């Protein structure tokens, strides 16, 4: 029974990459991971970006009956600089989009994002001219919570999913987890084609097929069409 049998993953990185091996976790990194992730997930400071009805359910989750404090999340940080997880609760119109993006950019790593409710996840009931059809076109989302509004139990389930996601993180994949390109600050999160596909035309209540330069297009095949 050699080292290869007891170490996770056959211990290949221990024999090739050193103790803090790159690529696959080693015994040491997995212990450190455990402590770090345990600390992170049990003391998440949410940044409540509450806009509409979902914000009221978020407030109800923080209040005595459902109590987010038992998850370590009672310290709702209203300053993004001190927050870990952005909970976007409620509908986000285009006028609010740059504000959401700026708040997200201001949060330091490690950060996660929860899209709470149908409107934040996909536009919800509001397939209209002023509503962002899902905040994942603007910020990278980790967990989507469906509901209109989701019950506090739903929000708590979503938060527990974030905790699970954090639990599975690893220092060896640090660059992957915390990837953020400075050039993408204040740019749409999804490419033009993805945005067009996400909010594709359906039904004849659309009547919206005109581009800003007057040309008409039905389906966007390349980003030049947009």
């Amino acid at each position, binding site marked *: 029974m050699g080292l290869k049998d007891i170490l996770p993953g056959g211990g290949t990185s221990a024999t090739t990459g050193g103790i803090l091996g790159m690529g696959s976790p080693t015994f040491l990194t997995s212990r450190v991971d455990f402590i770090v992730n345990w600390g992170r997930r049990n003391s998440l400071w949410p940044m409540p970006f509450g806009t509409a009805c979902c914000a009221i359910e978020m407030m109800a989750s923080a209040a005595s009956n459902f109590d987010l404090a038992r998850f370590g999340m009672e310290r709702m940080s209203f300053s993004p600089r001190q927050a870990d997880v952005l909970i976007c609760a409620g509908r986000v119109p285009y006028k609010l989009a740059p504000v959401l993006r700026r708040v997200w950019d201001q949060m330091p790593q490690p950060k996660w994002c929860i899209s709470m409710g149908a409107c934040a996840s996909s536009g919800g009931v509001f*397939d209209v*001219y*002023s509503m962002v059809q899902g905040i994942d076109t603007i910020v990278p989302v980790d967990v989507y919570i469906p509901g209109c509004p989701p019950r506090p139990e739903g929000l708590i389930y979503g938060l527990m999913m974030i905790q699970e996601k954090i639990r599975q993180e690893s220092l060896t994949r640090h660059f992957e987890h915390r990837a953020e390109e400075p050039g993408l600050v204040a740019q749409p999160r999804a490419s033009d084609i993805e945005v067009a596909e996400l909010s594709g035309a359906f039904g004849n*209540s*659309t009547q919206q097929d005109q581009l800003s330069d007057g040309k008409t297009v039905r389906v966007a095949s390349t980003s030049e069409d947009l």
Partner: protein
Amino acid sequence: MKEEKKSGLDAVDEGPVSSDVSRAEHSGGQADAGEHASVAALTEHFGSAVVRHRVYAGDQHVLWIAPEKSHEILSWLKSDPDHQYDMMSDVTAVDYGNGRPINVVYQMFSTVHRRELRIRCELPLDALEIDSVVDLWKVANWLEREVFDLFGVTFKGHPDLRRILMPDDYAEGHPLRKDFPLRGRFSRAEQTRRALNQDVERFYRPEDLSAGHTPQQVADVEVGTLASDDAEGDA
């Protein structure tokens, strides 16, 4: 453009039905001027400026008046001791579509005489201008701004006529018009790009904040250009 009005299952996806121009305008509603003191007095006082009178929903009196005389009539309704409409409940507009004039609606209530009255002014689509009543009722300030924002009606004499609900440089038009599609005129990608290119700090400078000022002139943004493309950019 006359659209066929669909019914039943075909109508499920139907958007807002624009009215036929050929349909008789405001044909319903019996008009009994005697039941409402202000209606009778107005018709007597202003004669031809009162275009039409209808009674809807049992007891709702609606008067159409000529838009040129709107300020005079509304001011008389506010100050005359027999009427004294001191509370302006609402200022809004109705677009029937299909080239029909846009109606600006004033909903008024008198706390002294406990009477309510609705006044409407028809504005043809090529002359969407009417006098502002901000000097009479301060509440009309934001209400008229909203009508300007969503319908494009200009209120002459308004101290601060600019968009209120949409961003100041919104280039797709006036949303609540019937010819404005529900999902907007630009593609979603374009809307997202424009949204994230907004510079929210650009719209307020200390000089702009004093009440009753001439609002900061935001250059008319043509459809197809981004606001930041304009040469005039003050930080």
